[in-house]
Each structure stands twice: as structure tokens, then as C-alpha cells.
């Protein structure tokens, strides 16, 4: 493993009202965020959300229409890529096919005129870091996808850049290997202290790896937060829907005497809201995660939100139910511990949830 003195400290990266137009299309629209030194920040969004464009601007492959990128408070927008000293890992690895593993890893050091004796040592350390000792003489095509990805990471970090950019680096790997690499990349990041800006469209990957998640859609910032904030307190319907699975309901809050009530007309329910929080009256949306709902047999309960099980999907660690409530589909997930296979397709059931698990999403009206 790497010794302590090799530890590099990450840089702070700041993006200020970054905008990029491609013709009439605004690929990135006034995006601002900061990544603290040594943190792992993920740009998350569907395809066409501007996440890769943002990364390309930070790397220097594209120039912004307006706005700035600052590395440790110094603007870098006008510096060409090769002078930026930023490591990058590409989706298709982009290893040089005519060079061996060690030649690939040596390349950035040669470009920096590092002494030959030192190069050898640094290659060894870098390959050790990604657990690829003994592969020095192989050509990229002789390696598996996972191994190629490791070489790409070693090559991008061997020159101790303060910032590492990763563009969907695990997209081409199968699920098992991807999960293993997620842990390993986090491990390497902790070891080196490098700041990482990571691009993915995989929300699960973002939740697993990130200190901070930046959610983009159509080039616009949707929400910034740590994984827990993003998952538990989505700020708009896009985020609620994009991160994980959720049930979105139209809601209307009104004040009656000294209490507040919320009407969920799609479910035909009106519920009292907790008195210790204040709610603005008016239309909004409510998001309830499938795992926060549960079912009970209708025979046992007299009242509640009634529905019929339309679909039952056994996933292994949990069972997913799609319940028809007044012609609206509600998704419910029972973990294995509570679900004993008592429900069948077509059963009449009652839906339950804690009022505290409702997330109110303001602003947007249908």
C-alpha cells in the first residue's frame, strides 16, 4: 500500500455560473457548485442533463459560453488541458493501445520530464495501488474491462493531480464488478486525498460513493446535497422521481382553525399534519417512498386508504406491490423481514404510512 508521504492533498474546485450553449441548446445553464478539497462530488443526471459537458469544461475539452472554473481559487478556463494538471478517467478507458501497461502509466511522467529512476518507482506504486502488479508488460487488449479501468485510474493518478475527473468510469462493467470498483475507487480516494468530480447517470452509484451529489436536468441545477439529504428531502419532483423510486401525489394543504390538514385527492384521504411544524397553505406535491408504506389485510382494518393488489414482484430481499388505489398505481415495498408472503395478487388491502414520512415538494403545479 502507499506510504503516508505519498499522500497528496486535493484541490478545491469551484464552478461559477457556468453556461454552455451548443447552437440554440443550453447544455449547461448557470451552474454553480463547489467541491471541497479531498471530497467526492458527483454530477448526477439523465443523458443530456449537461453533466458530461460540465466535466469537459473542467477538463478543458470545451470552453464555456460564460462563467468560470476555479481550481484552488485560480481561474483555469483559459488554460489549455495539458497545462491544467487534472487527472481524468474516461468511460471507454482511453488506454493507448500501442503501449504496454507500464508505458501507459509512465506517459504522464514522461510528459513532465520525471527522472527515469523515479518513473520506475512511481509506476510500481501506482500499479500496486490498483492491485495490478505483474501486468506491466501487457498490452491493454490483453486485459479485462475491470483491469483496463484500473490501469486508467493508475495512469490518471500517477502524477499526483490535485483533482480527478471521472466520466461514467464504471458504465461498461457488469453489476458485480461495478460494485466492487465503487468501493475500491472510494478506498483509493481516501488514500490519496484527491478531490474527485464524478459523472454518472446511476443514482445508486451516486448515493454509494459521494460526499456531495449535484443533480442536473436539462443543464439546470436541481439540488445539491449529501446522499441522505438528496434521498430523504428531495426539493422538487424531478429529484424525488429520479433518485430511487417514489410515489408522487398531488396535495393541497389548508389551515382549519388551529390545525393544518393535507388533502390527497388521488387517494381520497385527508390527513392531519403535525402541529410542531408549520405548513404553507396551497397546492403542492407529496412524495412517499415505497419502503415507507406498508399493507394490511382489509379484513383487519376498518378504515384507511383502500386498494387492490394489481401486481406482485418478488425481488428476493423484498417484495414489491403495485396497488391500485382509485385507478392510481401506488408502489409499496415490503422488506423480507416483514413480508411473509401473505398477500396475493387481487387482494383487497389497506395502505399505511407515517405522516412524518411524507415529503412535501413545493412550488411546482401540474
Amino acid at each position: 500500500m502507499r506510504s503516508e508521504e505519498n499522500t497528496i492533498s486535493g484541490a478545491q474546485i469551484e464552478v461559477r455560473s457556468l453556461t454552455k450553449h451548443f447552437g440554440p441548446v443550453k447544455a449547461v445553464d448557470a451552474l454553480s457548485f463547489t467541491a471541497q478539497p479531498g471530497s467526492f462530488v458527483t454530477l448526477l443526471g439523465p443523458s443530456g442533463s449537461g453533466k458530461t459537458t460540465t466535466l469537459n469544461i473542467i477538463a478543458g475539452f470545451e470552453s464555456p459560453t460564460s462563467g468560470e472554473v476555479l481550481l484552488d481559487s485560480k481561474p483555469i478556463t483559459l488554460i489549455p488541458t495539458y497545462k491544467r494538471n487534472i487527472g481524468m478517467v474516461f468511460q471507454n478507458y482511453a488506454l493507448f493501445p500501442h503501449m504496454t501497461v507500464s508505458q501507459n502509466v509512465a506517459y504522464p511522467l514522461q510528459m513532465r520530464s520525471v527522472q527515469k529512476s523515479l518513473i520506475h518507482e512511481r509506476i510500481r506504486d501506482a500499479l500496486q495501488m490498483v492491485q495490478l502488479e505483474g501486468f506491466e508488460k501487457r498490452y491493454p487488449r490483453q486485459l479485462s474491462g475491470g483491469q483496463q479501468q484500473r490501469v486508467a485510474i493508475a495512469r490518471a493518478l500517477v502524477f499526483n493531480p490535485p483533482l480527478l475527473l471521472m466520466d461514467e468510469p464504471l458504465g461498461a462493467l457488469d453489476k458485480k464488478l461495478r460494485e466492487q470498483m465503487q468501493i475500491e475507487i472510494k478506498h483509493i480516494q481516501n488514500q490519496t486525498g484527491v478531490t474527485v468530480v464524478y459523472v454518472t447517470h446511476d443514482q445508486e452509484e451516486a448515493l454509494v460513493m459521494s460526499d456531495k451529489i449535484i443533480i442536473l436536468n436539462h443543464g439546470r441545477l436541481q439540488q445539491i446535497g449529501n446522499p441522505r439529504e438528496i434521498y430523504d428531502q428531495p426539493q422538487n419532483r424531478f429529484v424525488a422521481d429520479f433518485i430511487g423510486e417514489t410515489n408522487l401525489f398531488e396535495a393541497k394543504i389548508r389551515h382549519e382553525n388551529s390545525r393544518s390538514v393535507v388533502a390527497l385527492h388521488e387517494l381520497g384521504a385527508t390527513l392531519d399534519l403535525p402541529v410542531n411544524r408549520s405548513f404553507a397553505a396551497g397546492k403542492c406535491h407529496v412524495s412517499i417512498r415505497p419502503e415507507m408504506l406498508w399493507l394490511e389485510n382489509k379484513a383487519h382494518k376498518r378504515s384507511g386508504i383502500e386498494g387492490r393488489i394489481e401486481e406482485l414482484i418478488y425481488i428476493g430481499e423484498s417484495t414489491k406491490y403495485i396497488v391500485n388505489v382509485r385507478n392510481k398505481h401506488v408502489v409499496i415495498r415490503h422488506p423480507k423481514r416483514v413480508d411473509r408472503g401473505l398477500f396475493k395478487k387481487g387482494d383487497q388491502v389497506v395502505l399505511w404510512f407515517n405522516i412524518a414520512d411524507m415529503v412535501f415538494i413545493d412550488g411546482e403545479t401540474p
Partner: protein
Amino acid sequence: MLVLGIHNNTRIFDLAIYMPILHGKLGKILLWSIVVLILFFLAIPLFVVFPISLSASSYLEFPPKSLSSQWYANYFSSHAWISATILSFKVALMVMAVASIIGTTAAFGLNRGRFRWKGGVFVLILSPMIIPTIVISVGIYSFFAKLGLIENYWGLVLGHSILATPFVFINVFAALQGFDRTLEKASASLGANPIRTFYYITFPLIRPGVFVGALFAFLVSFDELVISMWISGSRHTLPVQMWMDVRLEINPTLAAVSSLLIGLSILTFFSAEAVRRRTERKYG
């Protein structure tokens, strides 16, 4: 010749996929007999010319009654033949350089540039392959005459380069189409400026295309007769010398020269093929 550079992954047995009849033992025999027949047909000139060149007779005699190497000796001792050969080599090597530079830069421009009339420029660069050489020759003759490029080394170089450039262009263009530009981005992110990126990454990976194109350029020039006849004047290139020989005094020296030429072509072709295979093995 063109096929080599572009469809370099086709193997003869791939054909069997399209022709179910060629499966099985009988099919294999049929396939091989057809292949051998075609190859024989293509090689007939060699089977005739080479024996004649070894003939002891002073006429073109086939099959030769007795053998001798005198016609080869005659070639190597003849001033006219040797100076024509040297001129052809000099011209062909220069054409190789000129066509490689122009063809490669043109291929880069058309592969990477964003401009209107791209298709038009493409056809324009390839037009020397399409327009009959005799038409080009007439044009070159009247134009070069005004510039004093008749019976001139550089005139020959320029004339041949017109024919040779498309071969380089098409080979390099194909190589660039298959080149992954992410590699250039990766190189830049690793600290290489554009010149170093070209030197260490782009050029090594398209080099086989440039190399094969350059060999073709050499052969096109070395083989060229029509343009040379118009503009070479009294300084004969090898093909012109051969043509003159045929017209004036036919003797087996011609067959000896032809055999040497065929040998050279085969050598060039195989070295091009070897380069292709080596790269394929190395980078898959």
C-alpha cells in the same frame, strides 16, 4: 490495391458465410479450385515473362529452349536501362514523400475539419483515380509546357504526385476514421501538448495507413507510363524506356526488366501486408 487499405479484415473463408453451398468437403474443394484458377489467371504474365527472360535466344521465345542470364546482364550493363531505372527510383521516392505529405494532411483536413462542400472536396481529391490518365496527361502537358516543366525531374514528380496522392489520402482517411479521438483527449489530460500528442499517440496509431499509402504512391509513380510519355522528353523513366524498347527492338531484356519489376511489386505488396498484420496482432 485499393481494397487492401480499406477492407483489411475480410478473410477468404468469410465468404462461406454468404454461400452455404461452400460448406462441407465438396464445397471446400470447389472454393479452392476457383481460388487457384483466379490466382493462376492473374499470375499468367509472370509464368510467361519470367521464363522468356531466362532464354538464351535473342527473340521472345516461349518456352525457352535453353537458359541463360545474359538478358539480366544486358540490363545491368546498359546505360539507357540503368539511367532510366535510376530516374524512376528518384522520381518515385520523391513522389512518395510529396504524396504522403499532401495525402495525409488532406485526410486530416477532411476527417477533422468542419466545413461546407466536404463531399465535393472529397471527390475532387479522389478525381485523379476516376478521370482517365490520358485526359490528365493532355492537361498536364499543355500546362507544364508553359511552366517549363517538360523534360524536367520536378515536372515528373508533380505529374505523378497527382495520381499518387489519392492512394495516400484514402488509406490515411480510413485509418483516421478508425482512430478513437478520446485518446487525444486522454493524452492532453496527461500533460501532452498537441504536438507531443500527435507524435506519441496519433501518428503511431495511423502510421500503418500512412505507410501503406506511401508504398502505393511509390508503385503508382514507378509504374506510370502515360503522363511520363507526354512530359519526360528524352529523359526516359523505366516504363517509358520499356515502351520504347517494345516499339524499336524487341528482345528478352524487356522480359528481364519486367520480371525485376514484378519482383519489386510483389516485395512492396508483401511488406505492406506484413505491416498491416503486425499492427493487427499487436493492438487487435
